[in-house]
């Protein structure tokens, strides 16, 4: 489909940004949906050093495989004493939600996390993954997991800290969105007013939106 951004939405596209230190972002093409032959559909956002993380997830009873897998990663990290400051980042695919896909779907979500971990030398099968997983797209279809895991090393190579890298990641997670949604800004805290901190965020969604996350 044509990905040209409507004129009315151009004003929401940042032309530059100030991104938090030590984070990298990037995208790659996997071809998750057979109708997509050219647009990147994998995104990765990571911290160069493992760090604390948190997540909120849908309360829909039919939680997608990446939701179950990521929740389990947090649970296992805390329960088994691995700590809550060991997270690398998140790998995302668009084009398929990997939802209502049974046991195989869970295996695929874990494969995405573990393959990403391997790119950073984080692989230890006895510990929970260091990478979280998200997916978005059609519900009820299985992932073409080989295409995704084969593309993850390329995704790792494509990481960078520039505005273009962050925009590419924000674009790659889109489905029916008409524009990528990315914001960044800087701020200070009272304890160290001479220190400039940064925050950056991306989001997606244009339909099936009524989040109830906890």
């Amino acid at each position: 489909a044509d990905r040209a951004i409507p004129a009315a939405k151009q004003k929401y596209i940042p032309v530059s940004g100030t991104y938090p230190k030590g984070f990298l972002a990037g995208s790659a093409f996997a071809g998750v949906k057979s109708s997509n032959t050219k647009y990147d559909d994998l995104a990765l956002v990571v911290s160069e050093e493992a760090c604390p993380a948190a997540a909120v997830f849908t309360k829909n009873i039919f939680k997608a495989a990446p939701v179950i897998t990521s929740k389990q990663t947090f649970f296992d990290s805390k329960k088994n004493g691995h700590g809550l400051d060991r997270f690398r980042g998140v790998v995302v695919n668009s084009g398929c939600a990997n939802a209502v896909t049974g046991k195989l779907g869970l295996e695929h979500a874990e494969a995405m996390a573990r393959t990403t971990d391997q790119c950073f030398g984080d692989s230890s099968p006895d510990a929970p993954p260091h990478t979280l997983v998200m997916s978005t797209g059609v519900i009820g279809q299985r992932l073409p997991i080989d295409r995704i895991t084969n593309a993850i090393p390329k995704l790792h190579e494509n990481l960078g800290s520039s505005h273009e890298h962050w925009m590419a990641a924000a674009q790659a997670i889109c489905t029916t969105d008409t524009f990528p949604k990315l914001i960044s800004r800087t701020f200070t805290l009272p304890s160290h007013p001479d220190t400039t901190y940064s925050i950056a965020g991306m989001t997606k969604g244009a339909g099936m939106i009524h989040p109830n996350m906890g």
Partner: protein
Amino acid sequence: TLLGIVCTDVKVDPESMRSILRHTTSKSFNCISIDGDTSTNDTVNFFANGAAAPAGASPVRYIPRKQMADESTASATEQADFEAFTRVLDNFFVDLAQLVVRDGEGATKFVTIRVRSDEGYVPAKRAAVSIARSALVKTALYGKDANWGRILCAIGYAPGIMGSDTLPVHQFATRDSKSRDSSPVVIPSRTSVSFIPADGSEELKLLVRGEPEQVDEQRAKQILEQEDLEILVRLEDDGAEAPARRRRRSEAVFWTCDFSHEYVTINGDYRT
């Protein structure tokens, strides 16, 4: 599906990340609706790597409201950092969440629903959610029709709002403490609805304390031509001259968009 990834180089206590994220999400991403459908996949991830923090900096720590101003549990510096960081996050998350609403499939309007109640935040939010989910409210907005009746209707059937139908009618108008648990949290004679134009011009009152106003249709048309609109609902309107009641005044803010033909086309044409 909504997905969000937020990263910061602030140093945050790992045990506090979950509480901070939950609080911030409750007033941002959990306060939007495009079509009323909660996905199987909605997720927001939040990472804080401390990469910009000076050596020896203390991590920002979540401080529960009850412990704020209690220096035995958190120093003044810790409290100041937590408050400042929370303000940054709250504004940031709201800005991100609003971008999603602005991209609603087929949407032509960005609507802020603000509900004020003196029965607490929960009923205010329930009323706001009900308005945001109403297909009839959203289609009226698309049609630029100042149909406040649909707004009232949506408030009236909101979960937890409907009162007991075993109470005599006259008890709905009083605050009898014995019937408090079963009396409604919305009273028609205390309910007012206005449109607040995005350009800062004068509020258009549609319903004032349960009585419909003579609405200037031209003015309504002017307001509804704009992309942005605020619907203000007061569930605690006793009028300027009434004595102030001692109750918890709360405000829920929710963001949504209209329903257009385009939404139906997009989703009817969608192929699995």
